[in-house]
């Protein structure tokens, strides 16, 4: 079977690029780490790939606000990114990657391609790293969460994860379309409607704050060996689903 090509986007202080690439490799994709500078110089082209991931980290130090500088750098290439995303090729943004997708206006999807929401400083006022339980919205069109059980566990690690949408119509669009594919069972950061991750209506572009690549294998769980019935854990399915979708 053909191995889909996955572009793993990085820049200065993209920290989770290697484990995200390894996760895609494990489920049968061919990942390639590509620096935003290589896209801006024309050395690499976004549209040459089948899958795209924005990994976690602190891109450009999260100066100004999380993901903002990376989003600004992407704006010169918004044509290519727009074609990729709206063309239905799978895109996942994890943590800082989700923050980038929100700051570029790709998530939540809207006709003006404008930033309609934000991920703001956690209610506790600082960075928080812990394991959280998440409810999976079975009605969501999101392709990444297909087939997952009703509740899963993933670690989160962020300072700015409070999902806020000011416009009620935009929020209604999310809930009516079941775009909120993942919600926190116990809200750790003050997100509206406990939202942890949202997708586009097509379900192919998905951003989430928790880290599926860190609960990819059962031995990455803090509750061991109780969680170790199978080698692969909840996070594995996010990546597998994307590769299966492309095939």
């Amino acid at each position, binding site marked *: 079977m053909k191995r889909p090509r996955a572009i793993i986007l990085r820049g*200065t*202080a993209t*920290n*989770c690029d*290697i*484990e995200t690439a*390894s996760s895609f490799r*494990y489920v049968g994709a061919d990942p390639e780490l590509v*620096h935003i*500078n*290589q896209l801006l110089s024309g050395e690499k082209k976004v549209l040459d790939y089948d899958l795209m991931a924005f990994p*976690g*980290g*602190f891109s*450009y*130090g*999260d100066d100004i606000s999380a993901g903002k500088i990376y989003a600004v750098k992407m704006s010169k290439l918004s044509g290519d990114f727009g074609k990729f995303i709206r063309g239905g090729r799978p895109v996942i943004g994890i943590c800082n990657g989700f923050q980038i997708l929100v700051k570029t206006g790709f998530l939540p999807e809207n006709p003006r391609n404008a930033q309609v929401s934000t991920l703001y400083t956690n209610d506790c006022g*600082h*960075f*928080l*790293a*812990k*394991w959280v339980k998440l409810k999976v919205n079975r009605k969501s069109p999101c392709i990444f969460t297909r087939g997952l059980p009703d509740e899963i566990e993933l*670690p989160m*690690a962020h*300072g700015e994860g409070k999902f806020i949408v000011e416009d009620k119509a935009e929020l209604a669009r999310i809930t009516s379309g079941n775009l909120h594919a993942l919600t926190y069972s116990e809200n750790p950061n003050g997100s509206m409607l406990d939202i942890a991750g949202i997708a586009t209506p097509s379900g192919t572009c998905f951003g989430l704050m928790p*880290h599926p*690549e*860190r609960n*990819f*294998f059962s*031995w*990455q769980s*803090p*509750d*061991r*060996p*109780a969680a*170790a019935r199978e080698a692969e854990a909840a996070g594995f399915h996010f990546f597998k689903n994307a590769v299966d979708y492309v095939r």
Partner: protein
Amino acid sequence: ELETIAQTWSEHCKHKTFSGPVAFRDGKKVRKYRNLFKETIVKATKTLNRKWCLSVFTDNAGIVEFGKSGKWGLAFKAETHNHPCAVEPYGGAETGVGGVIRDILGVGLGAKPVLNTDTFCFGRLDSDKKLPKHALSAERVMRGVVEGVRDYGNRIGIPTAAGGLYFDDGYLLNPLVYVGCAGLIPVDKIHKRVVPGDLIVCIGGRTGRDGIHGATFSSANIEEETSSSAVQIGHAVNEKKALDVLMRARDLGLYNAVTDCGAGGFSSAIGELGSETGARVRLEKALLKDTRIEPWEIWVSESQERMILSVPKRNLKKLAAILDSENCEYCVLGEFPGDGRLLVTHGGERVVDLPMAFLHGGVPNFEKPAVRRPVKVSSKPPVSPRQPWGAVLKDLLAHPNVCSRHSVITQYDHEVQGGTVGKPLQGRYGDGPGDAAVIWPQAATLDQRDFCGFAVSHGFSPAVGRIDPYQMALHSIDEAVRNLLCAGAEMSRTAIMDNFCAASPRDPRVMGDLVLAAEGCRDAAIAYGAPFISGKDSFYNQSTGADGREYQIPISLLVSATAPVDDVRDILTINFKEPGNPVYIAGSALKGMGGSVYAETAAAGNNAVPKLDMKAAVKLYAALLRAIKAGCVAAAHDVSQGGLGVTLAEMAFSGGFGAEIDLSAAPREKGLTALELLFGESPARLVLEVVKDREAEFLRLMKGQPAAEIGQVTEEGMLAAGDGGAELFREDIVALKACWKRELI
């Protein structure tokens, strides 16, 4: 030239005290050392002569073999950043983390960091002692330090997953901040050699006026006029750029040597790299943060995130391309000529012109006097507690040196790189206190089918050191090794590091503490077969208090330990797993409440320190490791601060199960009281949950060892303990956990 010599010969850079001559007077006997460090710490490593030690004491970090592939080495280093954190906690902690990461980047031809560790000592947050005007409160220091470690470590993408917190008013004026880093390095990249003709290339951050005199300031007592401009300003993102560049350039073989700019800045980094070849430096080529800077300031500035590379001229273009692709700044400062001369110029002006041989060999050193500190020790049987036993247990669980560290740990990204398999917070609810971090460095090896990992733990007991510095060293090494064992690591291959902090070495009692602790380090390292691979020391941790008196920190020795884990999927955690499983205690309890948390909270009438039997401990641990490897053990947790009662409580509430315990079979020294058994901190003891249907095999493997069944895990969430007929306490695990799970910050 004077500045160069001041930096190079400072206590901070040369460690004159520890590697100098000492005359130790113990009663009427006098013992002389020509080089204390070589005759204790280094002696142990040389005696053990382990072939898996790939590089010790010579480079920026120690390196041991990693994994079974033969391809990797594990570099490990810990140091302190005490003085900066006392005057500017946030900046001091940030640059402490940044500095030790650069040590790992600058070992051999560069290792990839996979774990950060941190251990802090602060004054009690509830301290009522009056502070002098210039001193910051313990809470302010703690908040600043935690935030500094958080903001730097998280940004750079290295998990902070091991360490500790210790509160004692001895650290009120002089907090201690130990930072460590471990990284993976290919075995064919562990040697560096500057080739004459190579260019001196500085990559990463720019040079500014921050951190002038850091090395010399760290080699003196903190006083009112101490300036926070001696503390550098950190910028994690610049260091991440340098990291990304170095890993690519290393694998392409683009440079012959690398080291970090730490204390002393260019002067010590270039001075070290060029110690044989000499160096020709043109300071006007340096990229600057501030144009008003003086040439001597450029030379000694400790601005952060700078690495010095020795680059063959033909490779500069390729290196520059990588630097540009990662937006990492660089400058070519000069070359290594091969004439053994250090010549530094700025424009046409000569700034330094010295023979390297004088700079590195000329340091004068004097014999320091040392005496044994007189301490009154009472070995009378301890007084029984006034409160009920259950209330004592609850007080101990809530003690700042015992209670949960979650409010600090959760501020650190302890799982970035996806390899933190043994977690600082573990168990059924993900909040139990892990004994050791276990790292599966898959983001460095890029091999998810290689399940080799390594465990990291610490041992630290300054309360014991106040009474008996020799036993402190033994207890600390024992605790670190025991913690590794609790995770199921191969403890026969433990490598350790010593980090000493002490007050002024001009005080013979301080030197006496140091001598005794160093002797303990040597003896314990040899007994446990655990060589020292690196270490560091920090002196002059003393200040003048509000009352005009001099306050010294207690002698403080942090032992950091690492051992390999054959398969990270099989490691042990501390929480009880299954009702019906038998609970065992391994190791014999010894008399003495000295150095215990209990003795700090109540008058015990006894401050004797239990004398560790190292030979017995090593035999016990070897048997236990066989039982663990055979799959007989479901959970293991060491008995340390707070004693056996705390160990049992933590195992119970981390698993959500209770236990019925009868201590009458617990091995103990004759005449030991119930207080000593339950809340004494006698070393070399562990509590184990044994898998019920493997119990016979467990007993066979533990034959002849002091291990005894003391009860069972129960479904009901009650922890009950008795000694013979009398019940000591019966407490709800939810209530015990509530006492323990305090928000420290």
